[in-house]
């Protein structure tokens, strides 16, 4: 069960602070938790963990492929490895290692890809993953989650110390908008309906959840009732909820900080066409590479804004049959 804030502000703590705190608390109780990093410990905010649990914190140097393989081997010995890097290097660079050593070998591995999409900001195009979820989505049995805020982060990371399989967590490192109230609980594989609506469903993820909530207010003032869904699990997608949205609102807008090809737009469309085909408008990166800039500049450059969602929702509603 979850509850949503009435007003949306940036959370006081950074995602990486909460990640480190959470894993450190869990590691006190669970000696099988092991952390691996590829020369980004400072960036991932895990220095306190490395200090507190030096034997269970493995610095792999700038060698991500080796890191994922080591994580798979640790899993064979009953460990619960959490391996981090920037999203680009935690996905596309190590796709085959995740596929074979982790997933195909049926191991128990968590991969954390930080700095999703435009949040990579000044690191620019080489470091800006618009493709991480898309690259990994075709790996069988993998679970793909984009963490919305710190409250979700804490709950999901805790759950992942008690589950088995290969999980990729896409998460921003710094301050994101707080959507959920403390104490909220989340079910992996189930989308959250944050607000109900009749005319269109906006299915969003990550930083686009807050934009969707803003869009909802604008649409309301224009007489359009939008349902807002936080689809934080991209795989397995909550196909039942997507079908319900299609059937009950007749139009869908997806909103993601990722390439719509292979991303949430694709995942939702695949579910829609197999259940209740309706029009799907996609807000997201339209098959472009990343670039440098502030996050604000980049959000505008790639149309990842509440305004873009409003326009898409109006198009969707206008084209309903």
């Amino acid at each position, binding site marked *: 069960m979850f509850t949503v804030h009435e007003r949306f502000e940036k959370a006081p703590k950074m995602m990486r602070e909460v990640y480190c705190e959470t894993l450190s608390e869990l590691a006190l109780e669970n000696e099988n938790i092991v952390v691996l990093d590829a020369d980004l410990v400072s960036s991932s905010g895990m220095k306190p963990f490395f200090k507190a649990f030096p034997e269970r914190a493995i610095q792999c140097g700038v060698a991500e492929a*080796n890191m994922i*393989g*080591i994580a798979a*081997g*640790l899993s064979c010995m*009953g460990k619960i490895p959490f391996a981090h890097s920037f999203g680009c290097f935690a996905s596309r660079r190590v796709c085959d290692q995740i596929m074979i050593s982790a997933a195909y070998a049926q191991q128990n591995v968590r991969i954390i890809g930080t700095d999703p999409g435009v949040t990579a900001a000044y690191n620019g195009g080489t470091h800006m993953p618009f493709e991480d979820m898309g690259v990994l989505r075709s790996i069988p049995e993998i679970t793909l989650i984009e963490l919305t805020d710190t409250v979700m982060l804490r709950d999901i990371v805790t759950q992942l110390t008690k589950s088995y399989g290969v999980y990729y967590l896409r998460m921003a490192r710094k301050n994101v908008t707080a959507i959920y109230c403390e104490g909220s609980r989340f079910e992996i594989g189930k989308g959250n309906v944050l607000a109900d609506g009749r005319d269109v469903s906006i299915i969003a993820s990550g930083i686009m959840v807050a934009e969707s909530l803003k869009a909802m207010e604008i649409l309301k003032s224009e007489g359009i009732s939008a349902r807002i869904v936080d689809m934080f699990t991209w795989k397995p997608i909550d196909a039942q909820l997507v079908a319900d949205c299609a059937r009950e609102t007749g139009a869908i807008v997806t909103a993601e900080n990722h390439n719509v090809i292979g991303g949430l737009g694709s995942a939702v469309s695949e579910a829609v066409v197999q259940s209740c085909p309706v029009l799907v408008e996609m807000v997201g990166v339209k098959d472009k590479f990343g670039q440098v800039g502030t996050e604000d500049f980049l959000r505008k450059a790639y149309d990842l804004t509440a305004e873009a969602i409003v326009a898409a929702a109006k198009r969707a509603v206008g084209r309903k049959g």
Partner: protein
Amino acid sequence: MDLEKELLDIKVAAENIRLVTLETLGNIGFGHVGGAMSIVEALAVLYYSELECDPKRPDWAQRDRLVMSKGHAGPALYATLSLKGFFPKEMLLELNQGGGRLPSHCDMNKTIGVDMTTGSLGQGISSAIGLAMGARLNSIENYTYLVLGDGECNEGQVWEGVIFAAHQKLGSLITFVDWNKQQLDGFTKDIMDMGNLEEKFKAFGWHTVTVDGHDPGKIKAAIQEAKAIKDKPSAIILDTIKGYGCDFAQGVEANHHMNFTKEQMDEAIDKQVRKLEEARKAAQER
């Protein structure tokens, strides 16, 4: 048991593994003959002498692990595991059969006794490191054995792992490089010349030795030497011949994956039966 007798017994085991590997491949008429033949003696020394395992308890936590990173040598490992009693010999008929438990490349979830899934070259070293570090974290005093192909050493990930294992002073990791001088497309000197592998591993901070990879005594001595070194991972470069002991494969450039006739294989098997008998005789006479 005195060493000379033990080595004669290992020799018998090796000839038997080679025979059963040939029979297993013979059932389907094709397969990775070359790289299976070249690793037979190392497998015999491991499973009949140096590697601690228990076929009755394949999940025994304290056991030594083997990662066959050159996963295409699966048939030789399957023959070994079957002879050791991990699974019945009849199961060898499942090699490469749809729905079977013996895929062309090693799969820990399909075959009892296989410790890690391999086949995408270059990945085995990293998982072997993880197995060794996991054992260290679990206070298990065991060894993790890794078999790399020489062609496989073209992969960059191999060298990521080599650097890492030295940095971690991973003394429980004992690596074999099956230096059979051939890779899929031909001779390594023509396809991708790796230069001096022993010097390379040494330069990366490993304990390194090169031995005759078809001499069980030399392999056993190299493993014992490696076990005594606690602060460095060890690389044992096995000087081998791809296709060794199988006349239609040995000395042939394209012997990585071969189709062969029943007559060719029958001849190879007949010869191998005689070699096994000779080895048995020598062991019994001792």
